[in-house]
C-alpha cells in the first residue's frame, strides 16, 4: 500500500512537471519571439 502511494505521488509529480516544462518553454518562445521582432528594427512606425 505504501508503495502504491509512492507511485501515485510520482505520477502526479511527473504530470505537474510536464505541464510546467511546457509552460516554461512556451513562455521562453514568446519572449524570444518578441525580442526578435523588436531587434529587427526594419519595420518603421506608421505615420498618419
Amino acid at each position, binding site marked *: *500500500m*505504501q*508503495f*502504491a*502511494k*509512492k*507511485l*501515485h*505521488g*510520482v*505520477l*502526479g*509529480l*511527473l*504530470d505537474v*512537471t*510536464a*505541464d*510546467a*516544462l*511546457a509552460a*516554461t*518553454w*512556451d513562455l521562453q518562445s514568446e519572449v524570444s519571439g518578441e525580442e526578435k521582432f523588436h531587434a529587427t528594427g526594419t519595420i518603421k512606425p506608421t505615420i498618419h
Partner: protein
Amino acid sequence: MARSQSRKNEIHARPVCIEVHDDVDRTLIHQPTTILKKGPMNKKPPISRILKPKPRTRSALPSWHNGADPEIHLYARSLQNAAKTLVGKLEPQLDHETGQSPRTDWDACPIVLLYREAIELHLKALVGEGSNFLKTRTDPISLSQTHSLRWLAQIVCQIIRRVGWESDFTCEGVSSLADFSALVNEVESFDPVTRAIRSAGAKDPNPARISIGYSTSCSSQKSCTAF
C-alpha cells in the same frame, strides 16, 4: 424479432408542416421524415472543460505522440485510476472460516502492470516536453518505441538538472533525483512478465504464438510482497 423491435424504436415517421407558396410542388409536402430516437447511446455525456487536457506541445517539430498528447494523457490517467481501484480491492480480506487472506501474491501483478504503463506514458510525456531544454533533442521515434523506464528516467533527471528544478522535484517518498531513479528502477524490476511478452512479440509477429518464458521465482514474488 428483437431487431425489428429495435428498428421500430429507432425510426418514427411523422408529417412535417411546412409553410409553402403556390409555386411549390405539393407532392413534396407531408413526406415522412426519418429521425433517430434520442436514446441514451446517442446522447453525448457532458465533458468538463476543466478536466479536458489541452495539447501541451505547440511546436512544429515531430513529436513522439504524433499529436495524440491529450488522448495519451487521458489513457495514462485511466490506468492510474484502475490501479488505484485494484489496490483498494486487494486490501486485506480475511476469510471468516480460516482466518487467512484469500488472495495470492499473483493478484498484485495486474497492479504492477497498470502502474508500469502509467509511469511509462508519464515519463514519455515529460521527456517529450522537456527535451527542448536539452542540447540535443531526444529522438521522437526512439522515444515512442522504447519501453525502458530506466532510460526514460535518466533523461528526466537530465532535464530536471538542466532547468534547475532539483529541489522542487520531490513528492511523498521521493526527496531527490536519486530516490526517483531508484523508485523507477524498482518498478521496472518488478515487471518480468511484460518484458517477456514484449521481447517475444518483437521476435514473433504472430501474437497468438507468443509464449511467456519467465521464471516465477524471480522478482514477481518481490512485486507482490511490495503492495
